[in-house]
Structure formats: C-alpha cells, structure tokens
C-alpha cells in the first residue's frame, strides 16, 4: 500500500538561499542606510559635509600638526610669536601636557613623596578590578578591604605624619589625585547616607520624614557652588573660635552631602517600584524593620536603580571640578592654573591642556557608564513584563 501513497514528506531540508543581490553587500547597505529617500540623501550629504569640515581639522590639530616634545613655549609658538613654528600653524601643544604631566596628576605633592599616591592608586586598582569582575570570588571580603581598609591605608599614606612618613598638607594636593580622592569618598559616603535619607523620606515618623524632605529638597534646589560656599564660608562660623578644619575636608563634606541628596531621590524611586506584597511578605515572616529593608526591599530596589546610581556617581565625578571656586585645584583646576605659566603661554596651550583634561574626564565617565550598562544586563532577571 505504502508504495502507492501519493503524499510526500520532505526528508532533507531545502538549503537556505542567499538573499537576492539587491539586498546584500555594500550597495544594499548604502541604499538602506544612507540614500533611502530624497530627504535621506540630503541628510547624508549634509552629514558628509559636516564630517569633512570638522574631522580633518581635528585630526590635523591633534595628531599631524601637533608638537609632542619640547621644553618651553617656543616649540608651540609661531615665528611671529617668537617661536619656531611657521606662521598660520595650528596644532596641539602636547609638549605642554608632557612637561606638566606630573603636576596634572599630583598637583604640588612633593616629588620625592609621589610614590605614595602611586602606591595608593595601585592598591585601589588591585582592589577595584576584582570587585568589578563578576566571576572573581570573595566579593564581601573584597568590598570590606576596598571601602573599609583602603581609606585608612590611603589616609595614612597620603597625609603622612606617622610611621616615619613626612606630613604632606592637603593644600599641596592637586590634580587627578584630588579629583579621584574627592569622588571616591563622595561615592563611599553618599550611597549609605542617600539610603538612610530615602528610608527617612518614606518613614512613618512624621518628624523624621519632614526633616529628610527639607534636607533633600533644599540641597537639590541650590547649585553645588552654593553648597561649597556654605562649606567654606559658613562652616568655620558654626564652630567654636579657634577650631577649624581642613579645607579639603570641608569640600569633601560639601560634595558628599550634595551627592547624598540626589542619591536619596534615585533610591526612593527604586523603593517606590517595589510592590507592596514584598513589604507585606517580609512583615508576615516576622522580620523587623531593618531586616525587612536590608534583606528583602533594598537588594531589589538598588538593583532596579543601578543606572540612576551610576549617573549620580558620574555627575559627582564631574562636579568635583567645581572645587576650583573655593581655590582647590583638582585636575581641571591645575590645568587652568598652568595657563598662566609664562614659560608655556601660547595660543595653543589652553586648548591642548583642556582637551587633555576633557579626555581624562571622558575616559572615567564613559567607563563608568559602560560598566553600568554591563551590570544592568547581567542583573536583568527578565521578570519585567
């Protein structure tokens, strides 16, 4: 019977055919992405003109015409300005950055003591990198070392004055050292303080709630410069006569409190997104307030708002540049301070120094935002509907 069965079942799959020639290769890609319609073509032409106008100039300035080595301003000035470059020359003066690199990194930190910040940086990287790689075990110990032990060690190493290390006043600190230490302390302080403020704002106790709201909304309503003014001008008035504390510490307090208020709002957003059932479930298990928050609510809420938290970190990292207004010199401050160095004053100095500083800031911020995207993807439980 079976030989006469006319039904046909294909045993082998037909081979996939390649796309028609009009749909593959470079031509199709260009048709789809660059010249899909008349309007598109016009946009593409505008885009090409824009890129052609800007990109060659930038590359010329930053690489081809740039002056990489030299000892003073003559290498970066044109003949008319008393230098060696031909008239009409325009290129980056990387020689300036090269000569001032030590200052950009450490400020006026004594040269023979610079091994100390370098050692701290090495320790910091050695503790941070394993914490950031998800596969490396012992996260708890690692975090304790980074946020508990490292600040103590870093304080002893950087400030000195004990264990035979000579004292280095914080007024001598500068450059990337100040930027990084301010942001590290700011991050380490603002997250816990922000959590406490957020919990306070959602608390049942009316007075605590009101105090938290007043603090958060006031700080969020005023610029960081005003907060820094407050920290540098008003704090000394608040203390008994004769008691004063370090300017660096005052800036730290200002930056941390400022970031904490923003952090509190981000975390509050996360807390609001946790369904009531989670709170009630924790209550019905008999957990106390701190157990409920610490074990059930916070882990979920913080995971939800990772992008917001990292954005706050990035914002604070950028905001550390404002300490220049209370005459402290972070990376940007030191770069700006060096514009007035007569030995290097040329038309290109400011631009080169600022581009360098921008590049350093950009690397850190871009790195942070990419890492947050990576974490977000990794922690995504896909419960979201």
């Amino acid at each position: 019977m079976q030989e006469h069965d006319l039904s046909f079942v294909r045993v082998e799959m037909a081979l996939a055919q390649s796309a028609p020639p009009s749909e593959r290769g470079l031509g199709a890609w260009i048709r789809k992405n660059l010249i899909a319609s008349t309007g598109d073509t016009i946009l593409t032409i505008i885009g090409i003109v824009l890129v052609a106008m800007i990109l060659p100039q930038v590359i010329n300035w930053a690489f081809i015409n740039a002056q990489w080595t030299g000892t003073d301003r003559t290498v970066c000035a044109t003949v008319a300005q008393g230098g060696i470059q031909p008239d009409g020359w325009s290129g980056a003066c990387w020689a300036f950055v090269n000569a001032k690199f030590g200052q950009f990194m450490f400020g006026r930190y004594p040269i023979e003591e610079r091994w100390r910040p370098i050692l701290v940086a090495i320790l910091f990287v050695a503790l941070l990198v394993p914490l950031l790689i998800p596969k490396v075990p012992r996260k708890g110990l690692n975090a304790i070392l980074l946020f508990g032990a490292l600040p103590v060690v870093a304080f002893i190493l950087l400030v000195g004055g004990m264990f035979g290390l000579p004292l280095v006043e914080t007024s001598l600190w500068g450059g990337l050292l100040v930027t990084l230490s301010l942001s590290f302390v700011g991050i380490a302080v603002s997250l816990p303080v922000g959590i406490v403020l957020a919990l306070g704002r959602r608390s049942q106790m009316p007075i605590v709630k009101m105090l938290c709201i007043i603090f958060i909304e006031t700080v969020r309503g005023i610029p960081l410069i005003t907060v820094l003014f407050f920290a540098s001008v008003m704090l000394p008035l608040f203390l008994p006569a004769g008691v004063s504390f370090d300017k660096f510490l005052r800036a730290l307090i200002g930056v941390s409190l400022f970031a904490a208020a923003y952090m509190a709002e981000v975390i509050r957003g996360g807390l609001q997104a946790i369904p009531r059932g989670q709170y009630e479930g924790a209550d019905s298990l008999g957990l106390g307030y701190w157990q409920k928050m610490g074990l059930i609510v916070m882990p979920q809420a913080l995971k939800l708002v990772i992008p917001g938290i990292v954005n706050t970190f990035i914002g604070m990292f950028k905001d550390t540049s404002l300490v220049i207004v209370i005459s402290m010199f972070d990376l940007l401050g030191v770069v700006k301070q060096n514009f007035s160095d007569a030995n290097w004053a040329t038309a290109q100095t400011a631009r080169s120094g600022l581009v360098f500083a921008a590049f350093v800031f950009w690397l850190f911020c871009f790195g942070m935002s990419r890492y947050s995207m990576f974490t977000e993807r990794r922690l995504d439980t896909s419960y979201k509907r």
Partner: protein
Amino acid sequence: MASQEILREEPSRGSFINDPKIRGIFFQAVVVIVLVALVWWIAQNVIANLTRLRIASGFGFLNSRAGFDISESAIAYSSDSTYGRAILVGFLNTVIVAVVGIITATLIGFIIGIGRLSHNWLIRKICTVYVEVFRNIPPLLVIFFWYSGVLAVLPPPRESINLPFSSFLNQRGFYFPRAVWGDGSWLILVALLLGIAMAWFVARKARQRQMATGQQFPVFWTSTALIIGLPLLAYALSGFPLSFDYPKQSTFNLTGGFQVRPEFLSLYLALSCYTAAFIAEIVRAGIRGVSKGQTEAAAALGLRAGPILRLVVIPQAMRIVIPPLTSQYLNLTKNSSLAIAIGYPDLTAIAGTVLNQTGQAVEGVVIMMAVYLALSLLTSAIMNVVNSKMALVER
C-alpha cells in the same frame, strides 16, 4: 460589647519597648532633642564668632554703597548703587543666561535626539558622538574650553572676523547691529501682541469647528501671516521707524552696535551644548517609549508621516519627556552659577563679592540659597502646569 473590649486591649500586650508606636515617638523625640541641641550650639558659635569679628548681622547692609563695578548689567548700575541693586543685577544676569540657554539647549537637544533615531546611519552616528562627548565632560571644562580655548584666541579687534549682517567676531566678543526704535514703534509691539491674540483666537475657533463639523482650517499659515504680517503692516504705516546702529571699526576697538561679551558667550554656548546632550537622551527615550503600534495604527487610519508625528507620536512622547526635561532645565539654571569661574557677573559671583566685601557670610549664603530655591520652585511650577496640560485624559 465584651469582645470589642478584648480586641481593643490586645495591642498593649507584651513589653511597651516593642510597641512600634512608642518606639516611633521615642526615636523622634531623640532626633528632635539632638537637632535642637545642634542648632543651639551652632547658633551660639555663630553669635560668638560674629561678635568676635565685629560683624553686625541683619540685612541692613543691602542699603549701603556697593563700590564695585559690574561689567554686564541689564538695568542701570554704577559703583555708587547699593549692594541690594548689585544683587538684583546678578539675579537678572542669571535669569537671562538661564532663559536663553534653556531655549537653545531645547532646540539643539530635540534635533540631536530625533537625529539619534534617524534611519540614516551617518546622522545617527554623528548625533551619538555628540551626546557621548558632551555627557561625559564636566560643564565647567566646556565653559573653559569656549572661554580660553576658542574665544580668547580669536583675533584682536583690529583684525575682527567679518560675519554676515555686519556682525563681527573678535577677542572682545560678538558684535551685531543694534536696532534703534524711532517714534511710533510702540505700534509694532501692539500689532505683534494683537497678531498673537488673533492667532490664538483663530486656532480655538478652528479646533471647535473641526470638532463639530470635521472641516479643517489652515491654522498654521493663518497664524504665521497674522503674527508676521500685522507688525510689518504697522511698521509700514508708522513710517518705517526702525533703524540700525552698525558696529564700526576704529583704530583699537569696535564702536557702536551691540556687544555680547565673551564671558556671556562662552557660558551660554557651554551650558547649551552640555544640557542639549542630556535633553537629546530624554527626547530619544520619550519617542522610543511610544509603542510602535501607535504609529502603525495611525498609518492604518491613513495619516501621513508628518501628521503621525505631530498628532500621535509627539503628544504621547511629551508625557514621558516633560518631567525629566524639567529637571534638566533646573540643572541648567543651577549650572549657570559656574559663571563665577570665568567672571560673568551672575548671582553667585556678585553675592560672593558682596560676601567678601562685607563679611556678611550668613546673609550672603542665605540670599543665594533663597533665590536659587525660588527659581527652582518657579520653574517646577511652570513645568507642572505644562505637564498637567499634556497629561493623559482618561475616560
């Protein structure tokens, strides 16, 4: 009755230490006591410090002579004016740079944000590069870049760069012809206001008619004609009272015209560029937040690409966009205080000068905080009104 009595008794069982209500009251009492003690201690210290430094507290100093000059002022000001007036000048400068910056940043931000969603690969990439560059650099650095990196290295006034419409660009800023309003130019203003009022009226009538009958009316072209045409007509009728004061080159400087100083220019450009990157991201998120089904349904109803965007996508996207947009506007206003770093006389800079001259630290900082808080609240209030207009009307 009896069972209710028992129920009411029940919460008080166990030690009162474990009662959350009593605990709450206890903690709040502790907080209040600590806070009052802290404030009292601070107040004592402040009073002691102020008497030691011989500074009289109070806002009386606002009426004494300032004695310093301000390079840019929207109202009449000289060094003989009072401290109060100096602070008012600073406040106006802050408002000017914030308003102009917000408008420019919104324009650039919307263009870049829509560009990031373009089908065109090149445009998309250009917009992405713009956003990623500006988002990750401190605003202060952008300000310095414009100020010391670009505007300071422009040629001196004698070799000014000529731009169209008799404008000039040099180290001392941007010069353009200033409009001089002659007699009867008030008519133009009246006509402009009249045009706007009539356009609003026409739009209302047209909407009512479309709701009632379905007939459409070319509102856009009529409004444009009214708003531009009426002032032009008034201009012609009042005998062309408008003339221009052109900037002229003299030996060392440019005279006449309107000068925009480099401090303002760099602050304005930097704030606009920086905030635009954030607005672009908000706009992109907003448009992507409108589900594709909306666009497809609109297309199925026979709408074209333009009306789909205008009538279906943008109104829904705006709901997502407005709250974060508000906070960006607030950020821009607050970031305008960075002016102090390049010497643009905004509120913070002038209040800082006043604070240094008089030693009235407490009052100075209080004024700064109060003004910025008021500006923030005002901006939020305006944006909340806009938001409630845009909010979803659910039936």
